[in-house]
């Protein structure tokens, strides 16, 4: 049995996961909590947010980005480091892909803000 605090929403339910009983989750307030509890012990995932450089009309700014889906927790740090080499040169729209296919996960980094000149 493992006790976890659910991070799916601000409610922070106290979950108990029974590994020996098919990862049965109790204490969850919604189905998303059940999925989280199970996943957290089998393959923990995180959505990552960061920023990338963007050069628009001569001045460098920072564009906020996020992973288009959660990625394995162990890749979080390395995935942020990938962004250090990215510099956007054109205006971006919210949702535009900034970096494709992070470590072959099929997940992209996408812009979370529309940034025009």
């Amino acid at each position: 049995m493992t006790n976890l605090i659910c991070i799916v929403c601000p409610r922070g339910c106290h979950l108990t996961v029974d590994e020996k009983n098919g990862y049965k989750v109790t204490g969850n307030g919604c189905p998303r909590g059940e999925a989280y509890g199970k996943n957290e012990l089998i393959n923990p995932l995180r959505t990552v947010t960061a920023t990338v450089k963007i050069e628009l009309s001569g001045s460098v700014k920072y564009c906020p980005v996020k992973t288009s889906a959660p990625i394995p927790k162990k890749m979080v740090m390395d995935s942020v480091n990938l962004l250090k080499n990215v510099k956007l040169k054109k205006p971006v729209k919210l949702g535009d892909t900034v970096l494709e296919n992070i470590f072959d996960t099929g997940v992209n980094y996408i812009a979370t803000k529309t940034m025009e000149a």
Partner: protein
Amino acid sequence: MKTEYDVVVIGGGPAGMGSACGVKEKDSTLSVLILERDSTLGGILNQCIHNGFGLHYFGEELTGPEYAERFINRVKENAIDVLTNTMVLDIDLENKIITVINKKNGLVRIKSKAIILSMGCRERSRGAINIPGDRPSGVFTAGTAQRYINMEGFMVGKEVVILGSGDIGLIMARRLTLSGAKVLACVEICPYSNGLNRNIVQCLNDFDIPLYLSHTVTKIIGKERVEAVEISEVDKTNKVIEGTQQILKCDTVLLSVGLIPENELSRNAGLKIDPHTNGAYVYENMETLSSGVFACGNALHVHDLVDYVTAESIRAGHSAAEYAIKKGNNTDDSNNSLDYKGTVVSLKATDGVRYTVPQFIRIDNIGALNDKVDVFFRVGQPHKMCEIQVKTKNSVITSFKRLQTVPGEMEKISLSKKLLLDSETDEILIGIKDLD
């Protein structure tokens, strides 16, 4: 430029944008202006690049900039006027005249039928909590560091100690770690964390950052730049326990030690401020004690979630719209015919409850008997298995059970018009009672 509006909104963050959209939702013909001192709308959401916003209001998980952009688009779609880079200098509450200044228009007076105060809040700083020691560079409030890193692209330090476990501090612990800094510890004077549990898990535990509860920073050491901090354990009365001091070598200290509603303008204008919330006193419809002036968002009381700010602001917007419409139909220039003459119930926080918002309810303004007024408040201490009691001087009129309540999470109860009428009182107390 246009200098007469039906509703003027001060502040273009989530509360300002939400309330402006609320006005238009009620009546799209009303003219609305948002005044914002920064160069863009969005307020603090622009620097909150992490996710977790919007679950309640949009039903999906968004980052701060995404949440802001949705409202910025709504502001555009609703043809709401916006003046950015514009500072409000003064508000004349009585005549609803707002004095503003900006580079393009200079000093301008804007006349409005109704005003919405949505200036947000400020962070408590080192001065507010009197940390002893040297005064080197390298001491930042967590929000300032957040703006530097996320928007301006400056790193604030390499080895960091965070004082306070508020959500911004926790979020910054993660952000700093991902940006290459080493966060040595998060130090919290209370025996419990003031941030959301999920943030303890995903921001501290995920990166093995220790959380020292019942500890505080007792000295900042360093000549030019922070070189170390001394942290100490405290007892139940927050007094330092001698002999528990330890030195943590670091170059940066982040403070996440609370937020204070920003009401310099409101105070100067003579608006009555509740010393418990540091925001205006309000009625059930978010109207302040100055008629036609409404308040919402973190300028009114500090919220945990932007979703709640949005809900509250939209209500303030609806109320301001109603006021502006009545005012427009009213040929008499005085406020007399708009004044409320029915019963006013005042809500008082007691027994473990720190404040309530609203503080006053005008019963006749609630529509049907079954219609409800939502009352928000915070507890002073964590409680397990307790009930929120709604009382008159003599008896408990209703109660709400809770498995747990913590100071870091805003509580909400709903009181029906029927309940308020049946209690036949003009003062209702709200308190916490522990259950065995």
